[in-house]
C-alpha cells in the first residue's frame, strides 16, 4: 500500500469510526422465504443505515475512483432467516456476458468465528475466515432468463458444428452435456462460473485471492433496478454449517462491497467498506 493510500485509509477509517453506528436487525413476523425489495416489511423496519464505501485501496488492480460512495442497509429476521435490503445508486443495469462486459454486484460479509474482535475486514485472513454472500445481476439473469448461450451474446455468430453436436448425428446416439463438457474445461473441472446460477453465491475466504464458492446453504437473492438505483434483497438462514452462525439476541459484524459493471468493476476493482459494521439481532 502506498503512502498516499495509507493516508486515505487512515483518514477514512477514523471518520468512518466516528460515523459508524450498529445495524439493528429486529425480529419480525413476516414471510422472509422469498426475497422481495417491495415487501411491506421494509416500510416498518428501522430506517436504513448509510454505510460508507471507497474504491478498494489495498491490492492491485484497484479502481481509479470511488464509483459507489454509499450503500444503504436495512435488515430484519424471523427467527430462522435474516434478510438484508441493500440499496445503491447505479446509472445503468450491467449483466455482463461478452468479453469486457461486467456485472453489477453486491456482497455482504460476515466473520465465520464468533469473537469480539472481527477478522481483517478485507476478506479475512489465514485461519480467520469470512463468509460472503455475493449477488450478481449476471447470475440473476441466469435464473430469470437462462444462462446465455454464445448465440444469445453474439446473434450473428456462425459455427459449423460443435463436438458431439452435429446437425446430422447419423448413426451416433444422441449426446448430452456429460459427453460435451470435456470439451469445455471450465465445465469439465466443475467451475461454478460455468453453470447456470441462482443469483447469489456463498463464498468462504481467508484473505485476498482465496475466495472459494461453496455449495449453496439456502441463501436467496433478488435485485430490482429502477430510476438509477439497485435494490437487492439477500436472504440467508441464521444458521449455516461451516459458515457464519447468527442467533436471535446475538451480535455480529458486517462488511459490504459493491461493483458497478458499467464502470468496468470486477474482482478486486470494487468499492468496499473499510471497517466492520456491528449488528445486533433482536429477540
Amino acid at each position, binding site marked *: 500500500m502506498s503512502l498516499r493510500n495509507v493516508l486515505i485509509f487512515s483518514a477514512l477509517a477514523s471518520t468512518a469510526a466516528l460515523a459508524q453506528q450498529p445495524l439493528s436487525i429486529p425480529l419480525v413476523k413476516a414471510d422472509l422465504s422469498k426475497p422481495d425489495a417491495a415487501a411491506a416489511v421494509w416500510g416498518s423496519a428501522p430506517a436504513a443505515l448509510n454505510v460508507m464505501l471507497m474504491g478498494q485501496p489495498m491490492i*492491485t488492480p*484497484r479502481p481509479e475512483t470511488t464509483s459507489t460512495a454509499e450503500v444503504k442497509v436495512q435488515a430484519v429476521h424471523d427467527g430462522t432467516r435474516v434478510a438484508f435490503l441493500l440499496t445503491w445508486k447505479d446509472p445503468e443495469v450491467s449483466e455482463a456476458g461478452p468479453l469486457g462486459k461486467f456485472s453489477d454486484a453486491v456482497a455482504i460479509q460476515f466473520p465465520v468465528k464468533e469473537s469480539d474482535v472481527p477478522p481483517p475486514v478485507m476478506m479475512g485472513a489465514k485461519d480467520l475466515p469470512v463468509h460472503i454472500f455475493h449477488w450478481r445481476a449476471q447470475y440473476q439473469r441466469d435464473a430469470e432468463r437462462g444462462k446465455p448461450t454464445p448465440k444469445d451474446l453474439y446473434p450473428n455468430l456462425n459455427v459449423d458444428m*460443435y463436438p458431439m453436436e452435429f446437425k446430422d448425428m447419423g448413426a451416433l446416439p444422441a449426446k448430452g452435456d456429460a459427453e460435451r463438457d470435456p470439451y469445455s474445461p*471450465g465445465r469439465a473441472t466443475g467451475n461454478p*462460473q460455468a453453470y447456470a446460477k441462482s443469483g447469489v453465491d456463498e463464498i468462504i475466504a481467508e484473505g485476498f485471492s482465496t475466495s472459494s464458492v461453496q455449495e449453496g446453504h439456502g441463501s436467496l437473492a433478488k435485485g430490482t433496478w429502477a430510476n438509477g438505483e439497485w435494490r437487492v434483497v439477500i436472504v440467508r438462514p441464521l444458521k449455516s454449517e461451516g459458515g457464519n452462525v447468527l442467533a436471535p439476541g446475538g451480535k455480529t459484524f458486517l462488511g459490504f462491497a459493491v461493483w458497478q459493471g458499467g464502470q468496468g468493476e*470486477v474482482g*478486486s476493482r470494487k468499492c468496499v467498506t473499510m471497517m466492520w459494521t456491528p449488528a445486533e439481532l433482536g429477540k
Partner: protein
Amino acid sequence: MTVKNWQIKRDMAYPYEEHRPRKQWAIVFDLNKCIACQTCTLACKTTWTSARGQEYMFWNNVETKPYGGYPLAWDLRVLERLGRQDWAKNGTYGGKTIFESAPANERALHWAPSDEDWMYPNVGEDDCAGGSVGAGGAAFTTMPHDKWFFYLPRTCAHCTYPACLAACPRKAIYKREQDGIVLIDQSRCKGYGECVRACPYKKSMYNPYTRVSEKCVGCYPAVEQGIQPQCVVNCIGKIRIMGFISPPWAARDDNPVDYLVHKKGLALPYYPQLGLEPNIYYIPPMHADRAYLAQMFGPQAEGAIARYRELAKDPVAQGLMVLMGSTDRIIHSFKVEKGEATGFNEAGAELTRVPVTEPVVERAAWDEGASATRHNTP
C-alpha cells in the same frame, strides 16, 4: 521484487520472486520458412478450441506483419502505451518494461481488447509494407525492392515472468515446476479478464460460455509424454522445434533450443523489452525491414540474420535445422557427425537420424527393367 531477466540483460521489477522451473518449455520458429498455411492454427483449433464459447479463439495463430494482428494491433497498442524506449549500446535494455511502467493501481501497463479486435484473425494478410502508391504506401513500381512482409506464427510464450499470472487477483494462474508451462486453473478462474487485459501478447482469451479465461496449454498432456505440441508436429514447413531452454548461464551446446538461441544467437525472443522473458524464439526473416525487426526482436536482430546467412558454413547448425520436424518426440540433445544429425530423448535414446544433406541420385531417363520413362517425382 527484483528478478533477473537475461533477455534484457538486467534485473527488473516483477510482482513475485524469481523462480525458474526445473525445465522451461520453448519453441523456436524459423520465420524465413513460414508460408502462413495455418496448419498449426487448425491443428490447435481442432485439438483444443472447438467447443461453445471458443468459436473465435485461436490459441495458435499466424498473422501477417506488419499490418496483421490477432487481436487487432496488439503489438502497436502496447508499444504505443509504453512510448519510446531504448536499448543501450551494450545490448542492455535501458527502457522500462510493462511491469516497471504499470500505473499505480495496476500490476502491468496494459490495454483491454474488445470483441471486435478478435474478429479479424489475419487482417492485412499479404499486404506489403514499404514504398508507396503515388506518394505513399506499398507501391508496385518503386525500386529498389523495399516491399516486405512476413508471417508470424504465435502461441502462448509460457513466459518466465508472465503478465497474466502477475495480474490475476485470484492467483488462479500458475507456472508448472516440471516444464514451465503456464496454465489458468479452470476450476478457480472467475473470468475477471485481468489476464486478457495484462498479457501484452494477448494470449489469454475469454470464454463467454464457461465465463472463464483460457489460454494455450502448451499441449502439456503430450509434453508429459515426451511429445511436441500439436502446432509443432503438424507444421508442414517444418519451421518449428519444441524443446526445453536453459537460461544462458546453464546452456548446453547439445540442446537444440540452447544451440539455436544461446550458442548461435540465431533465434530471438519477440518484444523482449516488455519484460516477460517470453519463451518462443524466432529466427528473424531476412527480407523484412531491419528497423521493424529491431523493434520486434531487439538489437540482436541484425546479427541473427547475418549468422543465418552463414548457416551453410556450419554443418552442426545445418544438421540441427534438418532435425526440425523430423520427429514428433521432444529432442533433448543432438549431435551431428559424418553427415548425419541425430536427436536423442531425455534418457539419451536415439529418436531420429537424418542426413544433413539429402543424397543426390542421377538416373537414366529410360528405365530398362520396367520399360518405362522415369518421372522426376519421388
